[in-house]
């Protein structure tokens, strides 16, 4: 729960989701999976948005190894404060996850 998961990259941009949402990607409820785009170069964090919208618009590349994911998470920690990561990434994704879980249980 509340584990953030870098899932795709495009140059200096990274898409991050809540790891618990992984199982919904590509499925019937895929549109409910939200993500946050982080620009590691410009040090900006976008608002939360549907993952599928980003995947539709741009040729994102999958982050396929755990090593790369760890490097990205380390980068996040050096580029942004703990407060920013908590307030702008972890919390919004967690709030979305709750909604998804509730929807699934409906």
């Amino acid at each position, binding site marked *: 729960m509340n584990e953030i998961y870098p899932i795709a990259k495009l140059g200096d941009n990274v898409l991050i989701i809540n790891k618990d949402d992984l199982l919904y990607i590509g499925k019937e409820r895929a549109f409910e999976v939200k993500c946050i785009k982080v620009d590691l170069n410009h040090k900006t964090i976008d608002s939360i948005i549907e993952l*599928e919208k980003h995947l539709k618009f741009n040729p994102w590349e999958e982050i396929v190894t755990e090593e790369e994911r760890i490097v990205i998470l380390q980068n996040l920690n050096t580029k942004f404060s703990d407060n920013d990561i908590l307030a702008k990434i972890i919390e919004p994704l967690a709030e979305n996850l709750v909604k998804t879980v509730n929807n699934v249980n409906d």
Partner: protein
Amino acid sequence: MFETPTEMGPTISGEVPPELLAKEILKKFHEKISGRFVIRSENESVEYPVGDDFPNLVENIPATAHLGGSSDVRAGVFDGKVFVVKKARESVSEDIGKNEINTEQLVDEYIADRIYEAMGFYVPESKVYGSGLHKVSKFIPGKDLNTFSSDGVAFGKIKGELQEGFVLDCLLANWDVIGTAGGDNIRLGDDGKVYRLDNGGALRFRAKGARKGDSFGEEVGELETMKRNELFSDISNDEIKRQIEEIVAGQDRIFVAIDTSAKQIDLPIEALDDLKVIIRKRLEYLTIYLGKLKGDEKRKKTDRGSYESIVTNNYFEGWDELEVDGNAGIKDTIRNNIIRAEQMNQSDYERVAVSLGITVEELKTELQRRVEDMVAKADFFRATDINVLERVMNVDGRWMSQFETGSSDGTLNPRFRAKQELNMFGYNATEAPMITRTDDRYGDYGDDLPRSVIERNKEKRPIYGYFSDDIHGVINYEGNIPPPNSVNCYGNINFKIKKERALKKATITFHDSLDYGRDWPPTPAAKPHFTSFNCRYFPTDRGDLESLQKPSQTNWGESYTEVQYHGQLTMDDVESIHISTYNDLTQEDVQRVRTIFSIYKQQHPESTIQLIEF
């Protein structure tokens, strides 16, 4: 046509006041020049001496005042009178690949001028020197269209007279007849006549010198494309029919004008014949178009037929002739989706109609009118992320989708998008023969999508963009910038797509298609249907029908419009690239774009794509 001089300005005598020496004339002239051409207030009137006789040599006109514009245009004085001197451009020869002087554009402009004259429209008197090296025109004292308030009487008069030449503008493919900045090519002369000042974008060349190529062909597509300009958008079909009939009846005058001007400028016989052939073909097209307009009116239906509304019954007239590039079966899928969506959303239309106090048919008619109007006035864009810019421009030459960079087994499972594109466009539908849609469950393919639906034709998957009536592709709640674009999270470099290409290969929605594409489906950009607009927004405190005015201002309940480009989107489709630090680009980003653009230009010296910073 404009036989009667109006009372709107003093008559120019053409006489040079003896006390005005050339220096004084130019001094006065300079005082009135700001930017490109003469900018004057509406109530001001200053008399300028106007040239009567052209000098034998263009060198006799010392060009002293640079007038700017897209070519080398200068003002000069000869014999105490002001002339405007236009010099031929240098451009890259298609044959020898080297820079050469393009004399043909000024020749074309001269011929277009003479045709306008022959048909009763006003252009500056002019003379061509050196077989097209220079074109000298008499200076027209007056005020440009863009100096008038658009709600003023004078503006209305100029617009009205301008519109009288619409079909001739289309016939001559005078794409830049209006000019930039709201009309700097149209001038109300102090003699009360409305002048077409700069017809350098007529016939074979674009205003900036590039050849139109096949775009100046046998079809007068300008009757549709130029009508999207707001100065022409309200011309009635009756007026277009009248103008076509007048031009066709008076076509002899056009050919006499061509022959006469060709003789004056020693146009080679082959070039003369080519021009006459293409004009003749375009006149034939006008006749066909006239017949179509008359036929359309006869065919206009007043019943619903087998559809939900009269609007839709009329919409599908001519559907078979519509060209939509894209995957096999795309047109049939779109057609079925429109029919299904209108049926499925009937209760929403009824609810909105009741709340607005109108009938459902009236609502649909108004929605259709506004949807058509918004798409007609729009340009088409692709927001591009700086991280893929180099690849798009200098490596692949086209945009790719995530289907190409991902894998069907990866974490970025593309099944959802594949299913939506199957629903919306029938993409790879032949790979899903076992799955059939039921009438009451639109688009329900379930999760059991065959792998081949995802795997096949990846490189031709739709590429997504947006449409806006802002010249730089601005789109947001306010319709201006700042604030940044509402699509810049997907990319803040705005690629403007050539409209004629977009109209063939694009479909549109007024919302994100992945979310609502099932219920409010994409329809062709060349023939949008009102079901592409989600009327569940209405009525809300955020928007109503009146807010459906400009696609750049998404204040009707959505954050952006969407375009789906089919059959690949390539650099050949691009008209210009628009960047701004107001759109979340840093100065370093801007420099990076410039560098990538410069490399592109080195690789493609023939390219007419422009980088525009705003």
